[in-house]
């Protein structure tokens, strides 16, 4: 079980970020709680779906629970985020800098999307799932997931275009 968790860790962290509106500190807390649920047996994999689909479902549920319970703990999460080694500013080469800027631009655009649209877009583009798998994780029908996907993609394109336009104006 732990091996599988470790294999999916990067993807799980990305999904947890998406579930927490790209707040990485919250995502880390959510992922920690989700791992605890899995290891302690509070969340049990019954083999009815793919392990990744099930794990993403656990992370999604945990993110919802945590966001409800911890709204007032935002400041603490922010401090933890600033204290982690991963965010020490390092000089970056130009290509890496451009990629980081593009990633940040995309994060900003994703935060603007409604939850369902953000979830399905993230699962399809970031996690490279099919719409059917995304629907399974989101616990919605495939038709509903498809509608959210189409709307989300259209809106994301518009948001990214407007971001590029404003960048060019500057």
């Amino acid at each position, binding site marked *: 079980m732990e091996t599988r968790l470790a294999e999916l860790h990067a993807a799980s962290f990305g999904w947890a970020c998406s579930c927490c509106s790209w707040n990485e500190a919250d995502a880390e807390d959510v992922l920690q709680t989700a791992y605890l649920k899995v*290891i302690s047996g509070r969340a049990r994999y019954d083999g009815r779906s793919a392990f990744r689909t099930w794990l993403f479902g656990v992370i999604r549920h945990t993110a919802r629970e945590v966001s409800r319970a911890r709204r007032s703990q935002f*400041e603490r999460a922010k401090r933890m985020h600033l204290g982690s080694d991963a*965010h020490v500013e390092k000089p970056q080469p130009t290509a890496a800098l451009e990629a980081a800027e593009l990633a940040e631009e995309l994060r900003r655009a994703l935060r603007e999307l409604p939850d369902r649209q953000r979830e399905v877009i993230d699962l399809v583009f970031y996690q490279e799932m099919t719409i059917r798998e995304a629907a399974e994780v989101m616990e919605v029908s495939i038709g509903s997931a498809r509608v959210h996907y189409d709307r989300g993609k259209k809106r994301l*394109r518009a948001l*990214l275009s407007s971001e590029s336009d404003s960048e060019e104006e500057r």
Partner: protein
Amino acid sequence: MSNEKEDGRLEAAFEALRQDTTARAPDVHRMLDVARSDAEGAPRLAVVDGGAAHDGPGTDGMRHGSASRQRLVRFGGWVSLAAAAGAAGLLFVESGVDPADAEFEALVAAYSTDAASGAWRSPTAALLDVPGLDLGAVPSVGGVLPAGSDGGAAAGRDS
């Protein structure tokens, strides 16, 4: 711009996001170690920040205990309710039928029998029996005159 080109741009942006996020991902072994020790119930202090407590396994245990207590209280409530209902039923059976009800039922039965046979008379029926009440009755045409009435005078008037 075509959809394919737009999708390509989105894919490129997501690839950049994936690389950036992967680089920022926390150490998986540290997280799994923490989860394992929490799952084993190792004592860990609750982190208190801004007046809100971040629960560790200790508080999780307390929450579990509280849930069991609630279940026990709920079960006790149902048992009490069932016992009260049983006692009420037992009292009802032992007391039998109320005597007032039995008397009322006997009166109704007697009234029903009298009414069906035409024998029943109202207690105030005697007030309607006044002298000469029978004279007010209209005789039937062609009927036989009652004995003792004046048959000759009547015949003379007719001719």
